[in-house]
């Protein structure tokens, strides 16, 4: 079995970091008036874990008896929508973004239904049920508007816990109705503590350097760190010697593409890069990731390396401007990619832009050198 679901903390006391947050959650769960909540933070920071721990604190172990239901909703245009719902006797968990444009219908129907039925279990600690809405930041505006009044009206029977990566895309009325809970990514020491804890549970000796390396590599994402740990454990049973954290092959591929762009700027090279982009996209790597994680962050670094080999005396400030420009165009094309439908066009456009910027820069530089 995979380690990370197995060692997911079950109660608020088991959590390793953000103690202040845990204490707050605990006291809130104990008090009679539990507010609506909004958990936000980067992925892998432990939002879901905290939500499930809070639920357990609220209702006891009954929340762990989960069943999965498939519900059918009917949109105004008589289309049938099938949505998976995870529920226990005390709470219900939905991901409304599965319904795409019709998430409003799901929200309205489901919440009203829950709000209008009272808790039947007389032994329950609280009279309300909890609705957990995952990926709340991808809810459409309509659905969010539908939540507004429902949240106020049915507080006696229902509490809502929203889980989102960022609050930017939530409308202000929703934010003002919730108690905001920021779950920041753990820092290096905190991650190492967790890794060592897991290693101890597995009766496994994790060297200091290894845990540090894993923590650094995962960039604050606990889930990723645990998965990397798992893979490494498979590769070498005692984790001794120098570690090579395997990068996904598509990352290597992206590096290669970045190299291609920097090495040569010509129409032929654009064609070559384009073919590679197609391959990446056909392997279901989201275009944003291609642009963001690898190319745009990496190309500027590469640029400095290269230009420094071409000519020693690189004027630092001009180079700065070039990097900033590359980033700037990356953001612009990323934004367009969201609005447009054909992702590869924008990737190509960005490639060409970077090439022309680079070439311009090199040309100008050379001219300056001659004078």
């Amino acid at each position: 079995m995979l380690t990370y679901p197995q060692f997911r903390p079950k109660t608020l006391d088991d959590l390793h970091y953000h103690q202040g947050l845990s204490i707050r959650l605990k006291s809130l769960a104990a008090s009679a008036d539990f507010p609506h909540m909004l958990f936000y933070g980067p992925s892998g920071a432990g939002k879901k874990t905290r939500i499930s721990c809070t639920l357990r604190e609220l209702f006891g172990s009954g929340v762990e008896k989960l069943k999965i239901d498939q519900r059918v909703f009917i949109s105004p245009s008589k289309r049938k929508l099938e949505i998976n719902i995870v529920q226990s006797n005390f709470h219900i968990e939905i991901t409304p973004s599965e319904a795409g444009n019709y998430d409003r219908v799901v929200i309205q129907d489901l919440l009203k239904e829950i709000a209008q039925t009272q808790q039947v279990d007389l032994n329950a600690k609280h009279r309300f049920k909890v609705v957990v809405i995952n990926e709340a930041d991808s809810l459409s505006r309509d659905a969010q508007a539908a939540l507004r009044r429902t949240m106020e009206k049915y507080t006696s029977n229902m509490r809502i816990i929203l889980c989102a990566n960022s609050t930017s895309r939530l409308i202000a009325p929703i934010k003002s109705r919730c108690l905001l809970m920021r779950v920041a990514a753990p820092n290096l020491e905190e991650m190492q503590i967790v890794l060592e804890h897991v290693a101890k549970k597995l009766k496994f000796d994790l060297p200091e350097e290894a845990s540090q390396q894993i923590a650094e590599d995962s960039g604050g994402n606990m889930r990723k760190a645990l998965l990397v740990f798992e893979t490494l454990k498979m590769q070498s049973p005692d984790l001794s010697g120098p570690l090579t954290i395997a990068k996904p092959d598509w990352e290597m591929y992206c590096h290669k593409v970045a190299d291609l762009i920097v090495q040569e700027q010509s129409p032929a090279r654009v064609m070559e890069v384009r073919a590679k982009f197609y391959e990446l996209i056909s392997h279901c790597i989201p275009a944003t990731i291609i642009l963001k994680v690898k190319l745009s962050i990496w190309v500027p670094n590469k640029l400095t390396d290269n230009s420094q080999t071409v000519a020693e005396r690189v004027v630092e400030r001009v180079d700065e401007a070039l990097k900033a420009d590359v980033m700037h165009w990356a953001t612009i094309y990323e934004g367009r990619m969201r609005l447009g439908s054909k992702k590869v066009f924008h990737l190509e456009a960005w490639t060409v832009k970077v090439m022309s910027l680079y070439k311009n820069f090199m040309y100008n530089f050379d001219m300056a050198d001659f004078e």
Partner: protein
Amino acid sequence: MSFFQAKSTTTNVKHSVDPAHQPWVEKYRPKTMDDISAQEHTIAVLQKTLVSTNLPHMLFYGPPGTGKTSTILALARQLFGPDNFRNRVLELNASDERGIAIVKEKIKSFARQTPRAQAVASDGNVYPCPPYKIIILDEADSMTQDAQGALRRIMETYARITRFCLVCNYVTRIIEPLASRCSKFRFTPLDSTSTSSRLSHIAREENIDVSPEVISTLIETSGGDLRRSITYLQSASRLSSSTNPPVPITPQDIQEIAGVVPTAVVNDFARTLGVSVDEDMDMDDLPANGKLKGFHSVQKKVKEIMRQGYSASQILSQLHDTIVLHPTLPARQKALSALAFAEADKALCDGADEELWVLDVGLRIHKAITAP
């Protein structure tokens, strides 16, 4: 007899929440027109209509939390009294299905029933109880154009026995023919004195100790939205009272609840971008530092902030305030920065990637400020 009593209590339980657990926003909703803070002009006009009991169709607009819904509810309550309130007022909002079909059927059937003759109210007071009903369409700006179109004729046909009250944030989203049928009332954001008096009133009623600094932080973070500041106050008091022993509310608590990025973080970011922030006056080493490794320091800082989980729009709006209100920056640099902020805001609304845009804004400001 006992049977009837039992029955009446159960129905009470069903409809009313235990006041201790009720949101304060609902608990302290003004009961009469006189209780409403600020909006003197609107209230004065509506008081007159209350005397003559002849209401026009109304359109309330203004930013959230300025008392639009409260005003119409208080007005209706004063017109009809507690007994008739329920069957004379229909409240529809965005959480109800409001397609064209609903507008046609629900509103039509409600509007069609002629109101019954008035009776003396149970609490002994005499209410004007004019012979019409009120339909409140809350959040009317999220109604579709078609549904609004369908309302036009209905409003006129049933004008004898119904009055409509549209409540919305953006008056521009209401189609012209509807707007022209209503008398418009604009609600302005609350000024800080009336907000603070209302907040301290609530604090007194709830027996919580609130320092003036907390009140001013509340006003600052909510920007004239009374509902927001009341909710924050309630959350803060929940947090402070649930710990044992209760700790007093601090301005930092309010900032955390409101999702505001701490000032220190924003200042730190601004400093990385080359903006000198008041606390730190040694200007000499800043430009040199920025020139040497501008890109990487900005990139590192952005990564760090994003890992803390702050929302991009919040960071940008606070950074915007820092820069635009900066005492010494030249106008040109401010203008260039403002341009970057505007583009980023648009892109974020379109759902673009947050980290990239914060980085881009950071780099552009850095460039604008460090440029000779």
